[in-house]
């Protein structure tokens, strides 16, 4: 991994995230017209392979993008270098991935639409 590869990974993850953000917001605004309960939402997302893949990929892109962005801030503002810098940013990325994956699993696994 050269600094250039990290740069490309951050740009490409941003590219992936852009349409996800738009669809996520668009569907949210559309779906709540006329009110919506948590049970109704789960009824539509649970067991849906589409929403599992959609939010699964979204979470992976977010974890990558945020960890790489914070890595630069930690280097320039907190003076972290080398192994410490890589260790802390990897931990942030894995932490975000864990939290996100947990949430995706909770809303899309089980049930059945």
């Amino acid at each position, binding site marked *: 991994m*050269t*600094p*250039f590869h990290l*740069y490309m990974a951050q740009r490409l993850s941003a590219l992936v995230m852009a349409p996800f953000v738009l669809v996520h917001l668009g569907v949210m605004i559309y779906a709540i017209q006329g009110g919506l309960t948590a049970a109704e939402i789960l009824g539509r997302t649970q067991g849906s392979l589409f929403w599992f893949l959609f939010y699964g990929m979204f979470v992976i892109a977010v974890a990558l993008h945020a960890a790489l962005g914070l890595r630069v801030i930690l280097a*320039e503002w907190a003076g972290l270098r080398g192994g410490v810098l890589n260790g802390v940013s990897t931990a942030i990325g894995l932490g975000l991935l864990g939290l996100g994956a947990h949430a995706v699993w909770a809303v899309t696994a089980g049930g059945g639409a």
Partner: protein
Amino acid sequence: MSHRETITVTVQRGSAATGQHMQEFQVPAYESQTVLDVVSWIQQNTDPTLTYRFACRVGMCGSCAMMVNGVPRWTCRTHVKKVLKDQRIDIAPLRNLPVLKDLAVDMDPFFDKWVAAEGRHHPSIGRDAPIPAINPEAAARQVASAGIECINCSICYAACDTVANDPDYLGPAALQRAWTVYNDAKDADRGAILDAVSGKGGCHSCHSMGSCTAYCPNGLDPLSAIAGLKRATTRRFFGGGA
């Protein structure tokens, strides 16, 4: 001597090794006075031990840059009138470089990074071959020409916050030179340039905030040159060649 207005000038003295302090001087005001004139007046009339650098006095050599009221400027072409605040000026050595003494900084890190950015000519033919004609109107030549008036003054380097926060960052001037050579039709190793600017502290560390372009006294645009290098490395990544 007739009564003359004076200006109050604070100058940073000393070095990191000996300790630094600000010293105040009263300097007579003249018409068309430059900041370099002020520093020279102090050295010639008040304190001959004041250390600073200059050569051409006309904005050609790039040796007289200092921090004036906290921003980097070429002092030989900065009029006192333009920077005077309440009859005062603050003068300090250039930011982001080690201070040798008073207003003179060690430029070695700046020039070492020019070399590290591979901004040097890679010959395409031998010295006995006829000199090929260059079309000054060609698009790549225009891009190369945009950066050639750099006078190595290090003002952009002093203005850049990424340089301040990342000691490895090559900085705007070195990267702009790499982009200039990259666009030179006579250069034979564009791949080596892209390799050099893709490593640690390379062009991808730039945050595109543009202080370099805002402060360059020659009106050059390192920000756009660095954006060009980012595009070129990305194109190569997707198989577009060097």
